[in-house]
């Protein structure tokens, strides 16, 4: 099992760091899955994560100048590592002026991702900073726990409002309540609601638009038959929503959510080079 990668382009490094920053806000520990073409950051929906789960996928070619990996076996040419994203973010944070960043999987005393940053310096030789990030290697028998979640059978799918606006609304609501209700319909209307003993606040968004999911085998319930005005709703942990929105520093190309009435909200955020899915289950 080997892994070695290198970034030299500062814009790529910056972009990659921002993605890691988003992941940091969503997960204390998560799984890094490496394949020949892609990297995945995965958080499975264990109870420990509060039931929320995440699937983030990016093509390595968009970020790395060199990328070599050898998986556990020829037929299973992948590597699954458990790590703390904050460590990686810290290592990259001070590398923003680097000449090169190399990442390598090593196993001296324990498995580590070694991030070696080559920094410019006034002297004849560069400054080198190495960060050894401890990782846990996930054995193959557990890989099934981390499969890509399937698209839920949603009731409503709708584009999100401008994330910055949504974020400031949710942040203020967070001061008043621990839970928030997201409801939306197929006419492009979405409401964010909180309700406590003392106060209830609702913010209305309209003309958001609904993504045109092509119905496959007619199994998408958002197809025919659903009343366009009828709202599907889910009451979720407001902190999880706020963390998701806080992690978005750049506006995604597409941002939408799928609501399964009273069950789960599935967020999809698409950028040019990375896609992020985040599932927040509804509170019973």
């Amino acid at each position, binding site marked *: 099992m080997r892994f070695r990668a290198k970034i030299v382009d500062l814009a790529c490094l910056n972009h990659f760091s921002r993605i890691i920053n988003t992941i940091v806000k969503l997960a204390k520990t998560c799984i890094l899955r490496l394949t020949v073409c892609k990297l995945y950051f995965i958080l499975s929906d264990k109870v420990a994560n509060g039931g929320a789960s995440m699937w983030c996928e990016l093509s390595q070619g968009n970020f790395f100048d060199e990328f070599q990996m050898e998986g556990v076996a020829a037929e299973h040419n992948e590597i699954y590592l458990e790590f*703390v994203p904050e*460590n990686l973010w*810290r*290592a990259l944070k*001070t590398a923003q002026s680097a000449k*090169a960043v*190399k990442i*390598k999987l*090593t196993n*001296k*005393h*324990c498995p580590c991702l*070694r991030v*070696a940053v*080559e920094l410019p*310096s*006034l*002297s*004849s*030789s*560069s*400054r*080198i*900073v*190495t*960060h*050894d*990030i*401890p990782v846990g290697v996930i054995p193959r028998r557990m890989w099934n726990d981390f499969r890509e979640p399937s698209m839920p059978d949603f009731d409503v799918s709708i584009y999100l409002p401008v994330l910055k606006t949504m974020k400031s609304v949710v942040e203020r609501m967070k001061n008043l309540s621990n839970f928030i209700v997201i409801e939306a319909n197929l006419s492009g209307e979405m409401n964010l609601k909180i309700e406590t003993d003392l106060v209830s606040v609702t913010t209305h968004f309209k003309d958001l638009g609904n993504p045109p999911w092509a119905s496959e085998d007619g199994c998408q319930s958002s197809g025919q038959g659903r009343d366009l005005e009828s709202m599907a709703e889910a009451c979720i942990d407001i902190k999880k929503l706020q963390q998701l929105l806080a992690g978005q520093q750049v506006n995604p190309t597409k941002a939408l959510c799928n609501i399964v009435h009273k069950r789960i909200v599935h967020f999809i955020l698409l950028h040019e080079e990375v896609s992020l899915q985040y599932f927040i289950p509804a509170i019973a």
Partner: protein
Amino acid sequence: LSRIGDELYLEPTESGLSLRAVNSSRSAFAAFLFAPLFFQLYEPGSAGPDTELFRCKVHMKSFLGVFRSLPSLEKSVGKCLILLKPRASRLVLQLHCKHGVTKTHNLAFQECERLQAVFDTQRCASRLCAPARLLAEAVVHFPPTLAEVTLGTGTGGRISLRNYVEDEAEPSKTMVTELWLAEDEFQSVAVAPGSHITFCLKEFRGLLSFAEAANLPLTIHFDEPGRPVIFTLDDTVLEVHLVLATLSDLDSSSQCPSTNGVSHLPAPPDDFGDDLESYMAAMETSEGCSEGPPSPTFPLRTPQPAKSKPQQQQQEEEEEEGAVPGTPPHKKFRSLFFGSVMTPGRPGPATTQEVLAEDSDGES
């Protein structure tokens, strides 16, 4: 100084005004000596045959409160007068501001013994001098909450900085960051090869930001693990010393300093074209050196048999509970030795501490 202790010691001397602080576990001490030329007027008072120049300590927060907002002070204050009134038991800070406004602050003080850590830069085997900016750029790679850092010397004159991982922390869970600096980035390097010391980052960061603001080079004097590390800044009108205890290292004391057991990873090769690879390959094959200094698990014990707690009557030994990791725990760090400097014939607190290491540092 406020990053080190809660009390500010003021000691006027013939060679200037000395401001000092010490932390509660006696593992950090700093002194700023402002020469008379720094001031428009400097009158240290007169020491008679029976009396010393008066000295006192005040609460750091009270003192800082007078100078709270630097930008507005710079705009409005013309001059500042500091006056010690021993008979009135007050330290007077008077700010003469624009428009004829005078703000007078009367701070209560306590008399105190001379606060002096025992250290001697001449006895340090190793010395590094670097512009403050270099060290600031080095320290930025470590998290703000990091308690202790290890400074080491590698082959080829390279200097390394590495976060110190406590024994109690699980090595398989803690991230380790290491930074290498080339010899020519320093203004001067005179170090014993294979040496290393571990000290607290918090107090050091405080001095570093002062040095950066004042644009002064910083000199680091150090010796064996366990002996204090001394940081100095020098200017025509200002002399600064910061003395920090370092982690004692029983295992390495039994090895001679030149053996490899104490040194860090092999220093990276000089040409950096593509040979981060070979550097990293070299890292992979070097054995056992990468975990940093061997972590001692011994109770705190100092080789000199003297008591390490000063018997200064005015000091309260308060443990800092829940403080930001800047004060190393008692059990790991040696306390600095504090001499109780008593003038003969003066009735004073009943201190009988024997001073083993005289203060032979150039400071008056």
